[in-house]
């Protein structure tokens, strides 16, 4: 594999594009453009089977734990029935009455019970816990417990629910008046369903009682301190008594942000009662049936366009289904509302959103966190408007996309780091969009005619399938919304140990995205050493400070900033004290002075001027920008959609590690393709029907398109090296690009995700 320095393709001032490496080459320079990007820090272990995920760990004498769950969506719990023919002395059974602390899994508000007390509020809600010394006994015990209940009337439709978790409203300008002036008004209602994160490693926690009366948790998670908080509250433990450690984690995508707290609390309750370690490892069926998913949403959208083709008015209503408990619904809604206008300048915007409770399992975090839902809606609007106006969807976006100095609906002026035009140009160039779209447009009437004919009766046309090209854009506010970071006050540290080893003290987890590789690179660059000389302290709440959760694409941008500052201070201190360059003297310094640790707490770089109540002001420090071009084939006999290729240009501010950043774009893009085409979660009477891997369908290698990731850099001055986050941005864009391509192929608009073969064929048959 040869090393290659990517040539910047723009001026020094403007955004820089990193060309993807040719096949067989490894993209090399990163931070300072001179240091080769290291290979994945824990790569070897993952490739040899040495990496230990939670279920790989052996805890001698451990018992096995399981959860007894409701089968009704809403009911009064009258009691538990335990079959008298079973020897209950061999097992432990716990209910809400046995919880020593608060019966709650704490997230934002404390409405989520660890175990049902009086009222069951969703199918698969945790009612009781069982532990047994071996799996066979556990399986038998589970079968011998039943619930005595009295059904209550459930609510399944968020439009009919009267219980609201959160609501926000944003107004900019005078939309009502602007609609009066609009030459064209395009209106639509868009629906998106649940999406399951489908990390390939199921939820897993092992709880071990400690001599000090506390519990040590080892498990699969994104946010050890969230688990820490929940454990303390439910078991009434002190900070020191609750010790949370992260094992190697097989994927998260947000699904291991909130839910692990429930698994950990359950395992801990049992472990405390049993007096032995308890393993709580979900199987796939339980995981799909009971864990948090992406919020379904209904988005009602009106767009007003002037006679000159300017976007002059937007009115958006967002209704999200939060499920039975609040979890993170307010934050998901907030991001959804703030992104609902799309990456387009508009002077008059009204966005109103609400998140409603239903008697379904609570929904939670999933990559994109509200933005993919509204992203589908705003892009379908633009697509339909372009069609109505008879202009190229790319040209229309080029006209409308934010420029530097633009103002968002919340009133934020985009002072820097705006790359909408750049990602649009990069994606359309790489995908040859303009030429292909033009060719496609020319043959459109024939193609759509044949598709309509194929839809109307049996397909006697010459065409077996139709191809189409689609485009969409997206944006993603980097980091937490508003003052979230300030309120959290994360702390990260860098330590020069007495043993002369440099250690990173962060609670941010490796979940596949590359934390363990990238964070040492950042610190190493500041200290002037090789990344391999920077180790990571174990993710253990008794060792590392709370540097905040591994969510919101904040790790490199925010925590990277903290460790950079800490490392800067450490370097200065050591160099002053021991003389010479840090790289040369640090080991001697450690011998002479012992351990030196520098902690850095978050202080806002830029003035955070965001009003949570009114949702006005600077919502995010900066936004990332993306543009996808998708090519699809639609089978005219069956409506099946084959996504052939997606080109995704993503502005991430600054690429720290090209291979890892590309990996995020590629993975996020495929998840979005799945969201847009085959990942359907059917719900009946509040129960997920697609509750096995055989029925919840994610893309295989044969379904996956060719994905081309183009990394664009519009650096942000408020973060180390200008990075803005890469994990979530790609998730917001591919689905509408695919649906736009379906329209180009066969002339039908799909307004509900996923665009399954059933929906596509029905649209073709109805010939609308």
């Amino acid at each position, binding site marked *: 594999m040869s090393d290659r320095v990517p040539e910047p393709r723009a001026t020094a001032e403007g955004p820089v594009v990193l060309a993807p490496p040719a096949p067989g080459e490894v993209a090399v320079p990163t931070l300072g453009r001179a240091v080769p990007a290291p290979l994945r820090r824990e790569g070897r272990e993952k490739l040899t089977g040495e990496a230990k995920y939670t279920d790989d760990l052996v805890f001698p004498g451990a018992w096995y734990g399981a959860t007894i769950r409701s089968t009704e969506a809403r009911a009064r719990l009258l009691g538990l029935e335990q079959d008298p023919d079973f020897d209950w002395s061999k097992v432990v059974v716990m209910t809400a009455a046995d919880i020593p602390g608060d019966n709650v899994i704490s997230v934002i508000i404390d409405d989520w019970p660890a175990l049902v007390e009086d009222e069951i509020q969703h199918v698969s809600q945790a009612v009781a816990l069982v532990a047994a010394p071996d799996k*066979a*006994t556990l*399986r*038998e015990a589970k079968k011998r417990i039943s619930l005595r209940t009295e059904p209550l009337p459930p609510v399944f439709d968020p439009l009919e629910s009267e219980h609201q978790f959160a609501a926000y409203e944003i107004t900019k300008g005078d939309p009502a008046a602007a609609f009066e002036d609009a030459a064209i008004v395009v209106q639509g209602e868009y629906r998106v369903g649940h999406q399951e994160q489908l990390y390939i490693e199921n939820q897993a926690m092992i709880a071990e009682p400690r001599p000090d009366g506390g519990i040590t948790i080892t498990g699969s998670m994104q946010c050890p301190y969230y688990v820490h908080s929940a454990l303390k509250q439910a078991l009434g433990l002190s900070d020191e008594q609750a010790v949370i450690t992260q094992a190697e984690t097989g994927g998260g995508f947000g699904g291991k942000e909130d839910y692990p707290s429930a698994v950990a609390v359950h395992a801990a309750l049992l472990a405390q009662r049993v007096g032995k370690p308890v393993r709580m490892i979900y199987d796939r*069926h339980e995981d799909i049936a009971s864990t948090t998913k992406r919020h379904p949403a209904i988005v009602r959208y009106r767009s007003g366009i002037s006679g000159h083709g300017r976007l002059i008015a937007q009115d958006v209503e967002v209704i999200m289904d939060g499920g039975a408990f609040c979890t993170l619904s307010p934050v998901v809604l907030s991001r959804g509302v703030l992104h609902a206008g799309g990456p387009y300048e508009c002077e008059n915007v009204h966005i109103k959103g609400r998140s409603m409770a239903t008697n379904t399992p609570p929904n939670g975090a999933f990559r994109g966190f509200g933005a993919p839902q509204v992203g589908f809606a705003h892009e379908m609007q633009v697509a339909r408007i372009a069609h109505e106006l008879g202009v190229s969807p790319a040209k229309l976006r080029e006209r409308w996309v934010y420029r530097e100095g633009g103002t968002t609906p919340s009133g934020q002026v985009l002072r820097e780091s705006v790359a909408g035009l750049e990602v649009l140009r990069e994606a359309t160039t790489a995908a040859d969009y303009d030429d292909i779209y033009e060719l496609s447009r020319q043959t459109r009437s024939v193609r759509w005619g044949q598709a309509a004919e194929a839809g109307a*009766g*049996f*397909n*006697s046309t010459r065409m*077996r399938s139709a191809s189409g090209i689609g485009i969409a854009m997206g944006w993603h506010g980097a980091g937490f919304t508003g003052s979230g970071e300030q309120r959290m006050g994360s702390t990260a540290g860098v330590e020069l140990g007495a043993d002369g080893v440099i250690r990173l003290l962060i609670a941010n987890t490796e979940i596949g995205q590359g934390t363990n590789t990238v964070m040492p690179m950042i610190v190493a660059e500041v200290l002037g050493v090789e990344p391999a000389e920077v180790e990571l302290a174990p993710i253990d709440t008794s060792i590392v400070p709370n540097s905040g959760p591994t969510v919101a694409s904040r790790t490199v941008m925010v925590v990277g900033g903290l460790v950079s500052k800490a490392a800067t201070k450490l370097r200065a201190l050591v160099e002053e004290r021991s003389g010479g360059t840090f790289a040369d003297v640090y080991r001697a310094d450690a011998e002479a002075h012992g351990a030196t640790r520098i902690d850095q707490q978050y202080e806002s770089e830029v003035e955070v001027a965001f009003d949570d109540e009114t949702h006005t002001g600077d919502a995010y420090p900066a936004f990332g920008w993306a543009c996808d071009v998708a090519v699809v084939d639609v089978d005219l*006999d*069956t*409506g*099946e959609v*084959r996504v052939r290729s997606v080109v995704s240009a993503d502005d991430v501010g600054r690429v720290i590690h090209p291979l890892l950043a590309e990996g995020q774009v590629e993975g996020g893009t495929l998840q979005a393709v799945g969201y847009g085409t*085959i990942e359907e979660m*059917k719900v009946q009477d509040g129960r997920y*029907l*697609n509750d*096995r891997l*055989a*029925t919840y*369908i994610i*893309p*295989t*290698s*044969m*379904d996956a398109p060719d994905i081309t990731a183009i990394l664009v850099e519009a650096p942000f001055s408020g973060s180390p090296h200008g990075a803005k986050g890469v994990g979530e941005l790609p998730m917001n864009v591919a689905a509408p690009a695919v649906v736009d391509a379906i329209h180009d192929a066969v002339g039908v608009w799909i307004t509900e995700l996923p665009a399954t*073969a*059933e929906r596509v*064929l*029905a649209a073709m*048959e109805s010939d609308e």
Partner: protein
Amino acid sequence: MTAEPLVVSPANLDEAFALRAEGGWRPLAGGTDLMVQLEADVAEPPERVLDLWRLAELKGISTDGYEVSVGALTTYTELRHSPIISARLHALAEVAATVGAAQIQNRGTIGGNVCNASPAGDTLPVLLAVDAIFECGSTEGIREVPAREFWTGYRQTALRDDELLVRVRFAVDRSRHTRFRKVGTRAAQAISKVVIALSYKDDHGTWRNVRVALGSVAATTIRATGAEAVLEGSRPRQAVAEEAARVLAEEIAPIDDVRSSADYRRSVSGRILHRLLREEGGW
């Protein structure tokens, strides 16, 4: 307390028949269905399992020039690689390529597919469409059951409790053409939403002994006799194809389920048949 099922691996077929005759033995082939069912733990697990995996008498594909005989333990991979199947009933090799992926194809067997009797069983429509014969063996000898009598209800077969499926036979001469199409939930590792087999004897352009068999549109794999009647003795061109497809869509009664909808299945069944007729008819 549930013990793991007792399993016995007989060394030869006679031993297997003797055990089967005792009653209460659940046959195990490649495990791709039974092991999933055991893990899902929804039904009472079997107490005794009869492991057939080593039985040489259930393996191998042979032909006497006219009939092809496929051992019940033939895997999908073996079907895909068999020169006999490729030459004589290529549709069966095509089916095998659509089942699961490599891991399932290496272990799943035609006998397992037939006896599991899932309404979505992928080989079943092809076997039904070529009038396959199932050799059901027991201590009393071999009983032949034609495919059209084999699947008696939802996941139920005509196999007696003391019998094992030994071989699958079908006779196809050069004038018989068999086509197959599966519409799955995705491109690989997919259970079918609709699966259809079309088979006919080309008698100088006229179609005879037409068979149209479908899975995933009823509780069992079925023959669409209405569509067959339209095609029988015809030379399919557009009008005949449309009529046959229309009749097919009307005569089936699919349901909504977790995978797909009744409307889609009804519509796509007709559309796929129409496509196959077009391709075979050459217009």
